[in-house]
């Protein structure tokens, strides 16, 4: 599957749980530009009633990505499942959302972090208070992603 802006993913079946590996390109004109970031989408048994989960398998440093790589954005959450207290107007998972939409949302999250909902509090803080340092760390992560 090749999504609209060049994301590539493929499927593999492990432990009865459908997983799909995607490679996301860092969006142009952002500090993640040039990076190619591998991530796993895991689909629950009641998909599409419940959303898949997404986890980067490379190093990431970003306000909306947990230190273990899990992605925390509103479209990956059902309305009742809301640890970050997203604003009510945020985009939610529904059974008619698509994987392509998720990948697009994650790419736009890379471009525009939401520092209100911090999955990585330190990254949120750095994004707000020391943007230059954040950019330097992002550059390191981009370089690491290319030397796979």
């Amino acid at each position, binding site marked *: 599957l090749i999504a609209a802006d060049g994301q590539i993913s493929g499927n593999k079946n492990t432990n009865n749980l459908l997983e799909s590996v995607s490679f996301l390109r860092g969006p142009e004109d952002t500090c993640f530009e040039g990076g190619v970031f591998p991530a796993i989408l895991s689909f629950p048994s*009641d998909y599409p009633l419940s959303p898949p989960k997404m986890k980067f398998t490379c190093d990431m440093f970003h306000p909306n990505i947990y230190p273990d790589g899990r992605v*925390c954005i509103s479209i990956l959450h059902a309305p009742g499942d809301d640890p970050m207290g997203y604003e009510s107007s*945020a*985009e939610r*998972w529904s*059974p*008619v959302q698509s994987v392509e939409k998720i990948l697009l949302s994650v790419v736009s999250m890379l471009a525009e972090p939401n520092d209100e909902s911090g999955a990585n509090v*330190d990254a949120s803080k750095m994004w707000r208070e020391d943007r230059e340092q954040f950019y330097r760390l992002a550059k390191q992560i981009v370089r690491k992603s290319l030397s796979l």
Partner: protein
Amino acid sequence: KMADEQQETSQGEMESECVNCLAYDEAIMAQQDRIQQEIATSNPLVSDRQDLSVLHGEYAEEDTIYQLKIKDLHKKYSYIRKTRPDGNCFYRAFGFSHLESLLDDSKELQKFKAVAAKSKLDLVNQGFTEFTIEDFHNTFMDLIELCEKQPALAELLGSFNDQSVSDYVVVYLRLLTSGYLQREHTFFHHFIEGGRSVKEFCQQEVEPMSKESDHIHIIALAQALNVPILVEYMDRGEGGTVNHHVFPEGSEPRIFLLYRPGHYDILYK
């Protein structure tokens, strides 16, 4: 190089702190899951029909506002069928109650089947992806076909208590609601708060599971399927009587629901 190393250490320290906030978020989600589980084990998706008097026991005897209103409700209704309070109760109550009423009305059932069969095409023409919605539509049609065979009520009740069948019906009713609101957006956009478009409202408040329903959802679904709905409103308001609304206004209701703040159950005469 020194600077790099320093960065790496400080990043390392930060990560160990952040493992704690991850654990915290996970604890919140685990607790939400437990609450959902508790609600699920104590409430079937759709219950057996019960005598309306069970309501008296749900409120304190000295809670006169509710006790009086339950008495008032007794003047018109005899039974109640409860639904699980999971945010999908309006759709589940509507779906079950309507199909139940069609079990012994084959003429209405055929009319409804035709409306339901055509509804998928309307959604596809509006831009919903066919392969995304067809599983939900098929489940809905399967249940209508089950009703054509005039099964025992227990069989219909069983289907509505089968989580995946029941939830697929809820999804399809949500899509019909969304589709109707979007087709009639020039009318409905007047009723949407927060400067959102009708499409945004549907994506945030109608299509996601567990999002609760309000007047606007009820009007849309009643009109999308041409099934008038009467809702009795029972809340803490003074007066001792229960107020009702019929959707759409002025029509002859086919199904009767009881609304208490945040929840819908089914009523029977």
